[in-house]
């Protein structure tokens, strides 16, 4: 069942341009000049119920603009969006009850209050009866292990604890879709892992559809089964994580420890990444040569140890960004 449908979405911004220096500043008062920036250009995709989608792209790609149009914050210039059958530009209030948003860089919580009071506040905002809110908080307290800090004022929480509370606060009204804009930004690896566990849990327990943007490859790799990549306002890839990892670049990394040196300089489909005599790291293009063939070239009897891995997702993504620019 399609829960999000985005068709031919476009948004342009009028940005003031100014020549340099004082003269430029004066000129821009008398004769202001603008340029049109295509922040989002003809983007279409859809999301099924219960999916965890990674919506990624370099800075300035149009991710946040798209999310803001999907969450009623910005009006699209062209195209249409249907979230749970509602039009975000027209059914703003109705939609607000159905979705949750967390913007990693913006605080939604009241800093002088405890998470408990904040959760009660959000419950009231979403018209949930007080008893039901208290029951929900209790449920979250156990499920997301909030015991240690649920009664500490938000201003005294660590960044990680605060983000956890931000996410939990956005779940109080049981949204069907949760938009997470860079939720793990600036967090240490342990806290990142906690947040990922929380996201996985809410997806599993409450069947919440998650629409996630992140620059963190770990988030994408560990959470999402599908990736949508946007660059320069255009959709450049919409595929499963499996396809992205195994087929998009068709490349494998082979690291081998050898008894004797091997020369692979002119072999088709093989790129030498590192050659330290007996330690060799090569990249095999599987469209030109199979991995088995590459191992044969190294001679299995000559190999002390071998490790075959995929090209890191980070490299794949950077490559996609670069190739589509």
């Amino acid at each position, binding site marked *: 069942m399609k829960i999000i449908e985005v068709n031919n979405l476009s948004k342009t*911004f*009028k*940005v003031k341009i100014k020549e340099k220096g004082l003269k430029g500043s004066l000129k821009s008062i008398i004769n202001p000049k603008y340029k049109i*920036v295509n*922040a989002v250009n003809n983007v279409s995709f859809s999301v099924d119920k219960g999916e965890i989608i990674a919506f990624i792209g370099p*800075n*300035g790609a149009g991710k*946040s*603009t798209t999310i*803001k149009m999907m*969450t*009623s*914050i*910005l*009006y699209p210039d062209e195209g249409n969006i249907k979230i749970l059958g509602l039009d975000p530009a027209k059914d*703003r*209030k109705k*939609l*607000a*009850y159905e*979705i949750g*948003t967390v*913007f990693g*860089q*913006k605080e*939604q919580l*009241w800093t*002088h*209050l405890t998470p408990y*009071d904040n959760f*009660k*506040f959000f419950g*009231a*905002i*979403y*018209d949930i009866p007080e008893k039901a809110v208290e029951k929900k908080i209790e449920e979250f307290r156990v499920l997301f292990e909030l015991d240690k800090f649920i009664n500490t004022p938000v201003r005294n929480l660590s960044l990680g604890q605060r983000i956890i509370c931000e996410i939990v606060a956005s779940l109080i009204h049981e949204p069907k879709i949760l938009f997470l*804009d860079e939720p793990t930004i600036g967090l240490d690896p342990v806290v990142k892992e906690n947040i990922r566990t929380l996201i996985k849990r809410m997806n599993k327990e409450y069947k919440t559809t998650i629409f996630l943007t992140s620059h963190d490859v770990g988030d994408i790799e560990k959470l999402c089964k599908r990736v949508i990549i946007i660059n320069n306002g255009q959709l450049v890839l919409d595929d499963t994580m499996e396809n992205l990892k195994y087929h998009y670049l068709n490349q494998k990394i082979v690291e081998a420890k050898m008894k004797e040196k091997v020369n692979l300089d002119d072999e088709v489909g093989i790129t030498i990444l590192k050659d330290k005599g007996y330690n060799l790291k090569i990249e095999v293009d599987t469209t030109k040569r199979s991995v088995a063939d590459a191992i044969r070239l190294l001679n299995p009897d000559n190999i002390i140890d071998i490790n075959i891995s995929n090209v890191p997702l980070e490299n794949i993504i950077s490559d996609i960004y670069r190739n589509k620019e």
Partner: protein
Amino acid sequence: MRKYLFIIKTQIMSNLQYIANILLGFIGYFIMLFILFNLWDYLYSSPDELINGYNMNQMTWYVIVTEVLWMTLGGRKLCRKISNDVKSGNITYNINKPYNYVLYCLSTHLGDVVIKGIVYTFLGMLTGFIFLGSFPKLNIISIIILLITAILATTISILLITCIGLVSFFIEDSGPLYWVYSKVILVLGTIFPIEYFPSILQKILQYSPVYVVSYGPAKLFVDFSMDNAIKVIVAQLVYIIISYVLCNLIYRKGVKRINVNGG
């Protein structure tokens, strides 16, 4: 409605952290009153002398009441907050919440002024009593009516300042606009009652925000009459409707102009 009452309650809870700041703010208020009290003491040759219809006691109480209203309000902070929210794009994070932004601003700021209002009213009354040795003659009904007019006056002030803050959607900074507004209220209704000004200006002032946010309630405090109270409350209700509608219009127009790029 429950959500807005909850917002007020939440803001009060949050503000209880600042009780020391409120008490410190009273020092400025006290100095101001002390200067004005001495000024009136110098200008009035005897306490019973009337200047523009006010004796010295009335004049002092008038300033105490208007200053309580003014200091409680914290208008500059409100205007700056809304203006900054608009300029920084932070306002966008309120758009997809299920509340009316104008009522949200009103509730948060009302929650902000409740404790200040109680503390300043108590300390203001105490200061007046210390300076003058008596209170104006008021019965319980007139006190309740006065409280209602004070709450309505504060509500109107918040809505008008919200309007000014929201103008930031269309101009770079609404600060100068607030500066003009605050000086008009301060000079033409807070420090002096409107009877101090030329008759033509008095006629204009009677229809201006000065009448509903400061002069009206303070005049009732020093010279209560039911006729006047009804007039003030009706004018206040009209102003609330107008300023609320105006705020929503500006907000709706402004939101469509929002240009938040990135993050």
